[in-house]
């Protein structure tokens, strides 16, 4: 028995994403955002996308390449305050934005990856985030149904990987990457370092390769991945 090789070029992996796809994107600010995969998505001119991402990056970078150019129809997110394009697009009705509480977004994605149709929670019960949510009563408590989120494609940024798609992350570049790497029909991961099979110790793997479909080695660590000087 040996494990299969899932290394793919970014161009090829991204080419299979259809227009209209729902795409989950890892990252919280710069760390963990798969800038290279996002640039390829823009380069291939994919359109009518639904994005699921914690934030909208900053103007001119990351998912803003897709938002500012009108490629995004809908965005499920927690906070877009650092991207004036996204705020303007939302205010002008050019994109539809659904806001989630941050930990509930993480749990909805995790539920999708764990094959659970929904979780029950009281988070946001007395806020406007509860508007339109189904309420059920369990053991005398009123709880909101938060349905699982799954995507057609997840775009993941890893620090290290092997050809089977086992992934390990760095510091706060984890964020939404581990749950999203379990919650899509097709999981595409970019990795800064591609190790040979066996190069990641089994105890060191954070996302088992079983969840990953395409492993894309990165050609270079571009400036977008660097320290932001404000």
């Amino acid at each position, binding site marked *: *028995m*040996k*494990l299969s090789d899932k290394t793919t070029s970014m161009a090829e992996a991204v080419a299979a994403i259809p227009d209209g796809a729902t795409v989950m994107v890892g990252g919280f600010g710069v760390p963990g955002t798969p800038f290279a995969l996002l640039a390829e998505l823009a380069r291939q001119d994919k359109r009518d996308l639904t994005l699921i991402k914690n934030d909208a990056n900053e103007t001119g970078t990351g998912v803003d390449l897709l938002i500012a150019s009108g490629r995004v129809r809908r965005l499920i997110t927690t906070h877009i305050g650092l991207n004036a394009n996204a705020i303007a697009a939302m205010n002008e009705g050019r994109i539809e934005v659904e806001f989630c509480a941050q930990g509930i977004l993480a749990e909805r994605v995790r539920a999708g990856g*764990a*094959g659970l149709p929904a979780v029950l929670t009281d988070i946001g019960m007395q806020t406007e985030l509860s508007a339109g949510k189904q309420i059920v009563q369990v053991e005398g408590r009123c709880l909101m149904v938060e349905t699982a989120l799954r995507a057609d494609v997840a775009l993941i940024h890893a620090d290290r990987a092997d050809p089977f798609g086992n992934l390990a992350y760095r510091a706060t570049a984890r964020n939404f990457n581990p749950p999203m790497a379990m919650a899509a029909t097709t999981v595409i991961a970019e990795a800064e370092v591609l190790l*040979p099979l066996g190069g*990641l110790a*089994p105890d060191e793997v954070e996302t*088992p390769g*079983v969840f990953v479909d395409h492993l894309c080695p990165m050609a270079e660590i571009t400036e977008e991945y660097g320290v932001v000087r404000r």
Partner: protein
Amino acid sequence: MSADKIVPLKPADPRGRMVARAAREIAPGMVVNLGIGLPTQVVDHLGPDYPVCLHTENGMAGVGPTLPHELADRNLIDAGGAYVSPIPGSSYFDSATSFALVRSGRLDLTMLGAFEVAENGDLANWKIPGRFSPGAGGAIELAQKARRVVVMTTHCDRKGNPKLKRRCTLPLTAAGAVTRIFTDLAVIDVTPAGFTLRECAQGVSVAEVTEATGAPLRLPEGDIPTF
């Protein structure tokens, strides 16, 4: 050995042939969970170059060969308690992640044992009321959520009663889950029309399989291949 071929062992006994035949169900690149007991023996038919990822529900993907006690790692077992080994690319994870993998559709195939299989695909393999009720462990999720569920079992129980039935009489593990059954006598598919014979074991006649099956057995047109 070719990377795409199952090791062509030719076991002499009927159970061995059943296991060897079932092993051919595993396509290259699959993620597979082998149930405790007979299904585990399928491992012996997967060569070192065959691309397959074995999953064990206690928290490992890329399960490697079983080790003798003197070489065992005390922290590394499969769900049946056998001491196993890693292969390049193996990973360990907790029980929540392990079943996330099962329920979210990343498990391509599971091979399970059975007390009873019904012609509608119902499976009973975890409880015999009053006699055997240790709990279902991971069986319910494996049977309900693997993309493909096949059963490997002796065709009849120790008393000679058929395990393939019109309806299960024991508590179900999962309803309508099983698509194919490998026995010491035959390979049988569960179809919308019921059990359909696909292959007979060497030296076993169609009449013998029909006789040993507790529900109508459809015979496709043409010859029935032998395994």
